[in-house]
């Protein structure tokens, strides 16, 4: 975590005094409880319990009400985390993208570490019109291209959202698929095609 974030955490801690005092007072330091309550299993080591600065800031029950300057800082840091396609190619194969969107495999201790990760997009989003088993935690992405034209600006913005959604929405619920190394740049290209290729079932 960067030094600036530590300072901001202290600021947030003070802001947290507006929450009911008894709750804030008795929760105390969770670290010893976290340490004793989990055991490493499969690919899920105890290091996963350590929080990043963003995770800590976004763990407040009032994360929606973060001060504007904190939100802007989280968004700026998220945008700075994005790595763009090194060959300037935004779109891959929508059919592979559909498979990635359907698959929820990856990073659970019950998953084989060598298995390719999925994006599990349908868990939270509507995408293709023909897939009715979609979740509603995130917005519908059906007919995404109609709303995002497909020019270079929307290509870049879509890439950035998949890489690290906090770039536009501090404390977004969506995993940082690029920044956290959940998906490879090639897989993100395939998801880009699922969203933006005119032939993709998302857009037909």
């Amino acid at each position, binding site marked *: 975590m960067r030094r600036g974030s530590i300072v901001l955490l202290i600021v947030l801690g003070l802001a947290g005094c507006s929450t009911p005092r*008894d*709750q*804030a*007072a*008795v*929760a*105390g330091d*969770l670290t010893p*409880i*976290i340490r*004793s*309550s*989990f*055991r*490493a*299993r499969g690919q*899920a*080591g*105890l290091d*996963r*319990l*350590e*929080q990043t600065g*963003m*995770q*800590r800031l*976004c*763990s*407040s*029950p009032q*994360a929606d009400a973060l001060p504007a300057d904190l939100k802007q800082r989280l968004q700026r840091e998220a945008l700075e985390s994005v790595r763009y396609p090194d060959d300037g190619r935004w779109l891959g194969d929508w059919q592979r993208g559909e498979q990635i969107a359907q698959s929820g495999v990856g*990073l*659970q*201790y*019950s998953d084989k570490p060598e298995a390719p990760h999925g994006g599990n997009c*349908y*868990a*939270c989003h509507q995408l293709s019109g023909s897939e*009715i*088993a*979609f*979740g*509603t*935690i995130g917005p519908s992405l059906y007919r995404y291209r109609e709303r995002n034209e497909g020019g270079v600006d929307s290509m870049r913005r879509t890439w950035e959202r998949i890489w690290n959604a906090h770039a536009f929405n501090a404390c977004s*619920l969506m*995993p*940082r698929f690029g920044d*956290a*190394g*959940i998906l490879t740049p090639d897989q993100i290209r395939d998801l880009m095609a699922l969203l933006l290729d005119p032939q993709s079932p998302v857009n037909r």
Partner: protein
Amino acid sequence: MTPRSWLARTGAFIVVTLASTVGHRGAEAADDPFSSYRQMLGEDNPAELAVARGEEVWKTPRGPSNASLAGCDLGLGPGVVSGAYASLPRYFADTDSVMDFETRLVHCMVTVQGFARDELTAKPFSERGARQTDLEVLTAYAATQSRGTTIDVPQQVRQERESYARGRALFYRRAGPYDFACATCHSADHRRIRLQELPNLTGAEGARSAFEHWPAYRISQGAVRTMQWRLSDCVRQQRLPELVFGSQASIDLITYLGVLARGGAMDAPSLRR
């Protein structure tokens, strides 16, 4: 009907129910494709098999001390099972700790019956398709003895209030490669993962719908699953390491949920997806 033939019929029925529900009514109406299945089963919850075995195991002298669990104090006095599940977790002076039902059960099996704690907790949940564990059937039995009882998880003493406060903080704590907290999926009304509706566990209504119905016969697993299992499997999907059975974090999260659910009426074991 034998359990085996019941399962065979059930499996076929699930497929038919899902296919017809999704096919005819579409996604909006298919939030709970198991509801008609539940209605049809009515009182025939296969958890009753576990409950019956649990009652027998509860009342039979067992373990190195050759004692039954009749001497177990679940918080309402030694031997009182009726209504006890609905007021757990609570603080116990004899261990100076807040315990949920399952950790208190282990405590009784160790202190009353002489079982070894490590052996009891090494595999608390049955493998898929395997015989249910003693902990699972005993939990199913005890929950039945609170059916209809108003949930009254206490906040009388400091330790209980601290457990709630930690549970609430843990509920919102984001971590891991997916940045998930419990709150990521469970802090808004009428959200779904795929077709599965998610209870909003930040308020009484959603917390009651969850707390009232666990332990549950989990149709997709063909087994009774407990509240500790429910938390553990959520944590697995959060991409975190394994939540230790009976750990402080697990108890605190159940306290948080149980306190929010106060005023609801226990209706477990239920049938779940």
